[in-house]
């Protein structure tokens, strides 16, 4: 009888872990679409012309997070969860998620864009693509997360795949502040890796649906209050909102809201290491969407990178039973004194 109950309990937990992996896989599929739609929006007026390499993407990122916040508010209102946002902001785990928002939003994204500006897209994308490995390492250290050797191999293959896809030979002469650019790309990887661990820590006690709404809202506010004034981007933002209806960015914001929601669910349900590595499959999906929606050329290194990511993702999802306990035994030890 007790064994039957244990088996039932294990089956329920296994189904929960599988759902976490499914959310992680969906993250990549929707995030890939988000990137392609946002890319199309940023390639059109008013982001072209006078908008510099730096201001345009940051204004686009701010608007993207603003729309994502709005979509998530609508989602949480429909689910009857709006009061939870207020309750969550009053407790410390909610404030921890605010910190995660700063790490991933303005710090991660600004570092990434400065990396592209000063070191070129090839190095910035390749270096920032290591964020799942950084996040996994931080999760093992700070959250005592259990990651098997096979899952580590999968995470590293996903990272290598993302680097292979993003890399193309740069022209070093074009970048006089190359070292600064590399440092900024490393900052982006640390910001994004740090975000996942800090938010997962907060989500131990609060819901992912609420955490991501707060994350996007705080990120938007930090862009509006700090980043956009600092770069003088309000003019461009006004132009984007008034002169041309920002339907594409609103659409990208919808994709962003969905993909971030799925990502936070997978971080909470399947663990930081697996959630992050599965999110990197967005690179693979972005190739598919780009081939369909734009005139993107499929090259040999894109295919090689996609294969690495695909094999890595398979290694990660291969054995969901490993997810029955996400944390190491000393963290999740059965409470003897209970």
């Amino acid at each position, binding site marked *: 009888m007790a064994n039957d109950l244990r088996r039932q*309990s294990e089956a*329920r937990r296994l189904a929960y872990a599988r759902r976490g992996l499914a959310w992680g896989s969906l993250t990549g599929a929707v995030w890939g679409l988000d990137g392609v739609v946002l890319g199309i929006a940023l390639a059109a007026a008013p982001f072209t012309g006078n908008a510099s390499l730096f201001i345009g993407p940051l204004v686009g990122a701010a608007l993207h997070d603003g729309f994502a916040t709005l979509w998530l508010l609508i989602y949480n209102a429909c689910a*009857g969860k709006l009061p939870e946002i207020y309750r969550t902001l009053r*407790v410390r785990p909610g404030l921890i998620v605010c910190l995660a928002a700063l790490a991933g939003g303005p710090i991660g994204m600004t570092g990434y864009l400065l990396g592209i500006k000063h070191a070129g897209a090839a190095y910035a994308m390749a270096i920032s693509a290591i964020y799942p490995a950084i996040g996994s390492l931080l999760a093992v250290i700070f959250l005592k997360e259990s990651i098997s050797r096979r899952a580590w191999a999968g995470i590293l293959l996903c990272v290598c795949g993302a680097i292979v896809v993003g890399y193309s030979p740069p022209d070093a002469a074009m970048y006089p502040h190359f070292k600064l650019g590399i440092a900024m790309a490393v900052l982006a990887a640390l910001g994004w890796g740090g975000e996942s661990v800090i938010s997962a820590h907060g989500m*131990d006690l609060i819901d992912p649906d609420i955490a991501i709404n707060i994350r996007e809202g705080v990120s938007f506010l930090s862009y509006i209050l700090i980043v956009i004034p600092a770069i003088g981007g309000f003019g461009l933002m006004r132009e984007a909102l008034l002169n041309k209806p920002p339907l594409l960015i609103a659409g990208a914001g919808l994709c962003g809201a969905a993909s971030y929601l799925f990502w936070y669910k997978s971080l909470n349900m399947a663990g930081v290491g697996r959630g992050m590595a599965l999110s990197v499959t967005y690179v693979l999906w972005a190739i598919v969407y780009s081939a369909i929606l734009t005139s993107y050329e499929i090259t040999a290194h894109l295919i090689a990178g996609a294969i690495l990511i695909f094999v890595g993702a398979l290694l990660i999802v291969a054995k969901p039973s490993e997810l029955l306990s996400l944390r190491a035994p000393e963290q999740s030890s059965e409470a*003897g004194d209970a």
Partner: protein
Amino acid sequence: MPKLPLKMSVLKTVIELSPATEQVIFAALEPVYGRDRQFSPRAVEQRLLALRAVGLITETFPTDASGELSPAFIPTRAGKIKMSKYIS
């Protein structure tokens, strides 16, 4: 006292009523969250699974009043530490 987020309240209830079955936890939370549209037996079950996955609670199978085994939840040491850290 202002309401806590539901997941925190589920952990608090497990600590206070340990060992507590899903039904007991739901009944204990219903007077506080009963008017929330999000509140349902499934919502409580999902939060219990989430807390279990990150090792803040675990399951036990004590005998109930009628002598039947029933699954119930107890906090882990990590769960108790985390709760005392975040709720004064």
